[in-house]
């Protein structure tokens, strides 16, 4: 081959280029005050790559990028580059960017199944650390379709199932992986963990079931106790209930038994099989009320009134609400009639009255001072019965 003559014009051009600076200052140098920033902008000296490459800001970097991601390279090469880019982001824990890179790599649909399997598996790992366990699972499933024995995909899949609490699936995946490598420590640990969690979960289910059954049995017993005493229950809207079968009342009652009333008081039974009810006392004169959270069915009204009105309450402006003065009534809402309850009666006796209907499992009684003007007014026009 001929030796090429050195280009004479080139040398001249260089000399004249250099001579220029004898007279003109060099303008391409760094500015003294911001030389470090400018240094950082030169791709070769960059410590961190910028997250976005703006071709106007950083033309050199944009140029390099277009070389790497040149569309004219083979899909495999491009995919490999995206994989490397994704791996770099992954190392920096920038999992979102990693996912994007891997996705770009997969979009190339290159013909190398191993490479695609790795792209899927790596993307699955990034998704895992982002907490997107289902997406991660989808990716490792795709990876396994391409490469059934890809152990990393299997380990990742088992981990995902573990996070998703699919313990049986997690164990299955571990077993499949152990068929490929029987001593893979990560799989052994995952399997033991998943198995233990599965058994603990089964225990929790059994415990909850037993608790539920116990509660149901208790409620059944309470309902039975009410039935045996011939106490009539009524739902919130007594009108609707008259026509429906008695079962719906017991259903509603069961529901009522399960939930507490707003003050947290519930019907309960003691060791001797005696009931205690939450009882509401209403004082229409002053629009006040009292809740006795556990009124034992064998205790008398007067016993409670003595305690409740030991001191006259603050709303009792005329100080007349003393236990001896009080009269207790219950209302038969259906017939709009009142029944006067002797304070010496027990709760059970009153509840068993044929016209007493317990609403929302909370017996309610009206109290006012018998001799007062209010009471006379209140009873005006209403039919009042005396309970024996």
């Amino acid at each position: 081959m001929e030796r090429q003559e050195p280009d004479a014009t080139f040398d001249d051009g260089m000399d004249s280029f250099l001579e220029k600076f004898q007279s003109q200052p060099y303008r391409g140098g760094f500015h003294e005050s911001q030389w470090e920033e400018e240094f950082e902008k030169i791709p070769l000296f960059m410590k961190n790559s910028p997250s976005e490459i703006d071709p106007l800001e950083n033309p050199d970097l944009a140029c390099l990028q277009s070389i790497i991601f040149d569309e004219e390279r083979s899909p495999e090469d491009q995919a490999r580059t995206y994989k490397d880019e994704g791996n770099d982001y992954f190392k920096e824990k920038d999992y979102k960017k990693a996912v994007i890179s891997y996705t770009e790599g997969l979009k190339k649909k290159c013909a190398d199944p191993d490479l695609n399997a790795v792209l899927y598996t790596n993307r699955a790992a990034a998704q895992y650390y982002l907490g997107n366990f289902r997406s991660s699972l989808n990716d490792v499933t795709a990876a396994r379709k391409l490469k059934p024995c890809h152990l990393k995909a299997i380990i990742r899949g088992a981990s995902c199932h573990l996070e998703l609490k699919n313990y049986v699936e997690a164990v299955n995946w571990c077993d499949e992986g152990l068929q490929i490598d029987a001593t893979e420590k990560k799989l052994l640990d995952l399997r033991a963990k998943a198995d233990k969690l599965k058994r603990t979960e089964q225990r929790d289910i059994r415990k909850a079931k037993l608790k539920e059954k116990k509660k149901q049995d208790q409620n059944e017993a309470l309902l039975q106790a009410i039935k045996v005493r011939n106490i009539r229950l009524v739902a919130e809207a007594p009108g609707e209930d008259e026509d429906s079968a008695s079962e719906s009342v017991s259903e509603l009652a069961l529901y009522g038994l399960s939930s507490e009333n707003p003050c947290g008081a519930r019907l309960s039974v003691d060791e001797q099989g005696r009931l205690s009810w939450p009882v509401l006392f209403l004082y229409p004169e002053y629009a006040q009320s009292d809740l006795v959270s556990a009124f034992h069915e064998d205790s008398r009204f007067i016993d409670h009134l003595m305690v409740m009105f030991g001191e006259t309450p603050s709303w009792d402006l005329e100080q007349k609400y003393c236990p001896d003065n009080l009269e207790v009534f219950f209302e038969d809402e259906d017939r709009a009639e009142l029944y006067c309850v002797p304070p010496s009666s027990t709760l059970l006796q009153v509840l068993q009255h044929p016209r007493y209907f317990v609403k929302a499992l909370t017996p309610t009684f009206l109290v006012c001072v018998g001799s007062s003007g209010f009471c006379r007014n209140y009873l005006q026009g209403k039919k009042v019965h005396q309970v024996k």
Partner: protein
Amino acid sequence: MSETSSKAEAAKLLPFLMLGERADLQAAAAQHVLALTGSGPGRTLLAGQAALLRSLVELAVAPPPAPARDAARALVNLAADPGVHKPLLEAEPGLPVRLLGCVLDPQWPWAEEAAAVLANLSREPVPCAALIEALAAAEPGESGLERLVRALCTPGYNARAPLHYLGPVLSNLSQCPATRAFLLDRNRCVVQRLLPLTQYPDSSVRRGGVVGTLRNCCFEHRHHEWLLGPEVDILPFLLLPLAGPEDFSEEEMERLPVDLQYLPPDKQREPDADIRKMLIETIMLLTATAPGRKQVRDQGAYLILRELHSWEPEPDVQVTCEKLIQVLIGDEPERGLENLLEVQVPEEVERQLQQQDHQEREQQELELDPGPQAEEAAPT
């Protein structure tokens, strides 16, 4: 029939058993052989016919229309008779290998019968060793034992054969230290996969085989701490079949392993008394060392055994249960006796204990486990 004429009769069957013969003749001959295997003298007769035995094995592994099932069932009966093992293996030394192939073939329809033959054979040391050799010689990559364990532990491994008899096969194999070493390999997950099978509802054969395997493994006291620890967690799986629907208090419940807490009211105990006994014996083995005893105590075994004792209908199982409870609630033994498996028993004491044992057995009239037998086909 005189002996020579019986032999002659048997010899006449031989041609019809050869491969390539007419299927209906093969089938009839196989049925006849099967009928013979139903009786002691019949088996002895066949044991003397090496060529016939060889043909039988050929038939047992042959594809349809060969009467492989009847041939296999005949082999099951023959293998149940320890006296026939030697002539059988001499006639066909490749028997373990060939049957193993059938057992591990997920498509083979008579894999259960093949497994039953191996279960019967492996009860004796010589055939057991032959089988272990066959397993070791399997193709590289996955060991034969691993394939066997997988076939046992994978539900639906063979769609046409449940492979329950792999349980007793493994149990017999675990009499060999090499098998136990494989099962107890800490770098693998082998024994852990057997544990759920202690609750396998559909087959006492499988359950018994698995529990027998676990019991044999527990002779390895060096592995006790690992077995009782979280990586294996063997104790709950041994206690669960012994536990009933007990209603423990909240405090007692929290002391039990997770698997034994809040069991439903319909929980059944292990129905087979022999298996219950083996389970208790296995736990007993785990109490041989002081740390093992502590672990077993701490995991609440006493509560389960206490309830078992009051329920247990079988006297000898109850006695075994009592002995274990004694160990659990008893004082720690003196120095030198910490590992009961390693204690040197003086000869005289040993003799006395053996005598006592013998007397106990006579009193209870223990029967030897007859092993799996195939049903007899009625002779035509």
